[in-house]
């Protein structure tokens, strides 16, 4: 990945508010067409980082390049090429979904017809004439993403688009995000849902207290943990003693409903269980990004 092909380049960016180092030496690059996630708990510095990259804030030091240009000070040449969805859902007063899109489109010189087409992409075509404040939380989030995409930007920044949504609305939004990626956009987004980032992102940066602790593909981060796989069976299928004796099992323990085996070599364990016909209620849980976070910080992940 050469830097000329990179959509976003961030080099050693720092930003302090008084004694608080909100962003403390952050560097990363995002390739064109990549879906890049910035993860971490509230207060990790995700939003400040994103705002510096978008050109809304000036970093104390360090360098940012978007498509080869500096976003600070306000770079009018660059603005049409980036789309930003802000954390608060920023809308004009008393306008319908369609009018919001047309008005935001007008800020970029986009025709009213093109703007209205965006409703289709985010699945709000049937809500075109509803006023924004009558929409549900998930619908407003989708509308605000549509407003960020209305001028067909190359890079899209989304700040916690799935925060405070119910599970169904979150999954609907994932489809929207995937559809945007299909269109070849570069997406940079922040979230505090690690499970979601694992599913959606090509690469993730895990942030805590203003620093990036790890940056890679989610699968690579998880594999690098060398964390055991947990195999859970229905209680009574196998005794704890028998289970402990199986090839590859590091540890076995039982509670009221299930028997759990820890292993670093799941393949022989699963085939041995299959040989014994002991697959009732089988569940396999591998490590997740939450385990990665736990491993990096030494504390449980709390969004």
């Amino acid at each position, binding site marked *: 990945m050469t830097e000329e092909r990179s959509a976003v380049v961030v080099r050693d960016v720092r930003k302090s508010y008084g004694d608080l180092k909100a962003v403390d030496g952050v560097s990363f690059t995002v390739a064109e067409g990549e879906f890049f996630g910035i993860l971490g708990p509230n207060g990790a510095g995700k939003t400040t980082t994103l705002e510096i990259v*978008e*050109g*809304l804030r000036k970093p104390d030091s360090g360098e940012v390049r978007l498509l080869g240009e500096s976003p600070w000070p*306000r770079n*009018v*040449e660059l*603005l*049409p090429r*980036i789309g*930003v969805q*802000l*954390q*608060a*859902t*920023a*809308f*004009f*007063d*008393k*306008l319908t979904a369609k*009018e919001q899109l*047309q*008005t*935001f*489109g*007008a*800020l*970029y*010189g986009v*025709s*009213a017809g093109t703007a209205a087409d965006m409703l289709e992409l985010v699945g709000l075509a049937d809500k075109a004439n509803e*006023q924004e404040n009558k929409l549900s939380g998930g619908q407003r989030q989708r509308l605000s993403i549509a*407003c960020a995409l209305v001028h067909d930007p190359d890079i899209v920044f989304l700040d916690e688009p799935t925060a405070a949504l119910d599970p169904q609305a979150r999954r609907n939004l994932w489809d929207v995000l995937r559809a945007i990626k299909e269109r070849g956009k570069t997406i940079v987004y922040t979230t505090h849902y690690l499970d979601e980032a694992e599913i959606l992102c090509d690469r993730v940066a895990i942030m805590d207290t203003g620093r990036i602790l790890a940056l890679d593909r989610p699968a690579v981060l998880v594999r690098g943990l060398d964390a055991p796989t947990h195999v859970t069976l229905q209680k009574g299928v196998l005794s704890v003693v028998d289970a402990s004796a199986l090839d590859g099992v590091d540890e076995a323990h039982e509670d009221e409903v299930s028997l759990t085996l820890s292993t670093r070599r799941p393949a022989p364990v699963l085939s041995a269980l299959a040989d014994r016909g002991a697959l009732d209620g089988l569940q396999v849980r591998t490590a997740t990004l939450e385990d990665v976070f736990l491993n990096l910080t030494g504390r449980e992940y709390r969004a």
Partner: protein
Amino acid sequence: MTAFKTLSVAMLKGFVRDKVTLFFTFLFPLMFLVIFGLLLRDGGTDKTRIALVGDGPIAAALRDSGALELESYNDVDAAVRKVKDGDLPAALIIRGQQVDVRFAQSDQVQSATVLGIVNGFVDRANLAATGQPPTFTFAAEKVEDASLKPIQFLTPGILSWGVAVSAVFGSALTLVSWRRKQVLRRIRLAPISTASVLSSRILVSTGVALIQGATFIGIASLPVFGLQLSGQWWLAIPLLLLGTIAFFALGMLVGAFAKTEEAASAAANILVLPMAFLSGTFFPVDQAPAWLQTVSKIFPLRHMNDGMLDVLVRGKGIEALVVPGAVLAGFSLVVGFVASRVFKWEE
């Protein structure tokens, strides 16, 4: 240009769909116009009413002249009781050639008026009785003076006030709400100049001001209120536009400091309401003490009011716009400049 047009349309829609704003822009000032217009309809000073007992040539002459209103009583005691109770300032008692006046001494101005009028009629009757031609002659004629019927000063005053309120609130609340909802940040992230955004919002405000002008003047001209416009009423249009811009700038200044809509609305009220009372919105400012009249000259609303009065009802020409126009333009420039210095994109 499309951006400017679309933004203006968007803001106009937002304005029209907001019932509360519509109320405070149109109905609220109209309420004042209607209430004061009806309350003060029989304005000017009323004729003095006195009691009358008995009749004769002097009573007839008084009645014909219309100088006093006469309320007839049959007996002297009833008439004098009216005076004692403070209901009437004086009682005129005529017994043949004898004319007596019993007056209340509490209101000396009114008593003097009554005594003067009655005395005048008695003297004239005496002179006529002698059959001599008068040595001195005396004639009186009416002159249109500077004092106005209430609706004539209420309409320009309430119009200026209504325009000022909606311009201040319009700009202050839009600015604060856009900052809070991060619409300002979105605009900053779009390749559009702040001048386009600002001018489209000002266009909406001036459009609203013109509609206010047409509505208020239209209603005040109804026969119940009876507003009489002077020949060059259209000179009010440039004044309306300048006034809107001046108060829009004031709203931007309020919006730069206020963090919430509630704070902005309180601050705007604190600025505009006293200004309205001291600038002749509800009563002519020339009835106020001299020092207050001087103080009120620092308010842009006072000058807007003066200009409106001059061109709408006093029949003055374009020269009447010079001072108000210069004050409003200067105010816009100074306040607008300060507002742009203290303007904040985010909280």
